[in-house]
């Protein structure tokens, strides 16, 4: 057999029968539509969940980065926070280059005085571990107390752990104080007397915070006014420092402002009524 076109057509047409039930097709199509809709809803909810989680992650990272940035951008309004940072973590380790922006009332709005005045005194003096336990000759102990040249310094005096007085030094006075601190003995000498220091019962702590020209706050330098005195920034260490006269004045002011040290009030003079001994 060699089929011609007619035979082929008739062979193909043979067996044509019933048609297709449209209801079956429509039901199947609706099922497919529902399945597609469900799949779209599922994907959309998954995408929304991913977007929410991603958004929370981004917000969290932004908040974290913003929080750490805020810690490095202290100022007059953030004095309390800065003080707390000094208290807990050993002082100079934290916020070593805080910007000294802003100024409290009564001081110029700008300039070295304002920069230093804006630096808050820590609520309590930073507790810096003395390098090598306070002994001389430790590695790094001969380094500089102030990492950069200072334009002004904030000096805070504490009796025990209470802030009693503070002052701002600028110009030559500030650099003179820094020089006297840096030039102090690098090895301890216990035989030296300490006439410039307050009496042993009043001895306290000085915290000296340098502020550079670009308003960066250096690590605090803590001077413990024992005899012999010790000055450290946590790394470098000096001994037998004698405070200059203006600082001695500050110390005295701080001591006098402390209510516990107020002068003893004697009873007013009056008429002697007789011998205290009864006859």
């Amino acid at each position: 057999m060699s089929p011609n076109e007619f035979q082929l057509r008739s062979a193909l047409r043979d067996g044509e029968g019933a048609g297709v039930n449209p209801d079956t097709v429509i039901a199947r199509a609706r099922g497919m539509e529902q399945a597609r809709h469900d799949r779209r809803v599922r994907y959309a909810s998954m995408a929304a969940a991913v977007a929410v989680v991603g958004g929370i992650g981004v917000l969290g990272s932004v908040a974290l980065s913003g929080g750490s940035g805020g810690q490095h951008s202290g100022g007059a309004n953030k004095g309390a926070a800065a003080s707390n940072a000094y208290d807990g973590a050993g002082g100079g380790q934290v916020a070593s280059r805080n910007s000294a922006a802003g100024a409290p009332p009564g001081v110029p709005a700008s300039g070295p005085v304002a920069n230093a005045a804006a630096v808050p005194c820590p609520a309590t003096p930073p507790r810096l571990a003395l390098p090598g336990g306070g002994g001389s000759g430790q590695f790094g102990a001969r380094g500089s107390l102030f990492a950069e040249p200072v334009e002004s310094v904030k000096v805070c005096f504490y009796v025990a752990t209470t802030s009693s007085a503070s002052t701002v030094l600028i110009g030559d006075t500030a650099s003179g104080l820094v020089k006297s601190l840096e030039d102090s003995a690098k090895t301890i000498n216990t035989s030296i007397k300490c006439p410039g220091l307050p009496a042993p019962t009043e001895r306290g702590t000085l915290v000296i915070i340098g502020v550079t020209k670009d308003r960066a706050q250096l690590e605090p330098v803590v001077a413990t006014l024992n005899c012999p005195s010790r000055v450290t920034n946590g790394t470098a260490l000096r001994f037998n420092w004698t405070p200059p006269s203006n600082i001695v004045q500050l110390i005295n002011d701080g001591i006098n402002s402390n209510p516990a040290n107020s002068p003893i009030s004697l009873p007013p003079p009056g008429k002697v009524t007789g011998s205290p001994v009864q006859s």
Partner: protein
Amino acid sequence: MRDEAGFRMFVETNGATLLHAARLLTGDHHRGEDLVQGALTKVYLKWDRIDAPLAYARKALVTGHIDSTRRKWWGERPTEILPDEPGRADGLAASDERDELRRLLGELNPKERAVVVLRYYCDQSEQETAAALGMPVGTVKSTCARALARLRVEAAASMGGQP
């Protein structure tokens, strides 16, 4: 809103032709029904957006058939035990010439079979066949000629005669 009445009328008018074409394409009654249902489902889902539903249905039919013959990783897997085959013996293994021709049609490759069905069962022109299959007209002509030649040779061989 989809025009369901129009779709029902379309299926009632053309369903039998499409079902038979699907059977010819697959060579199997049940697979043909599955194929035509799939094609008509596609037509229903796009009913409001297509201008020529019959042409779209034919195209969906041949495309679905050719796609189903491609090997897919999620498709058929080789197995040692063959399942029952209701296919060829179901309607095509007959003794007369017509049944013999349709059995030989099942031995063509899917594209050749689609060309023959569209040209000689659906009475499509070469251009319409080319459009439905997405191939050039020249390819349709050559494929058709090759398919017919194979049918003649196979038919002659099976009947013991000369082509």
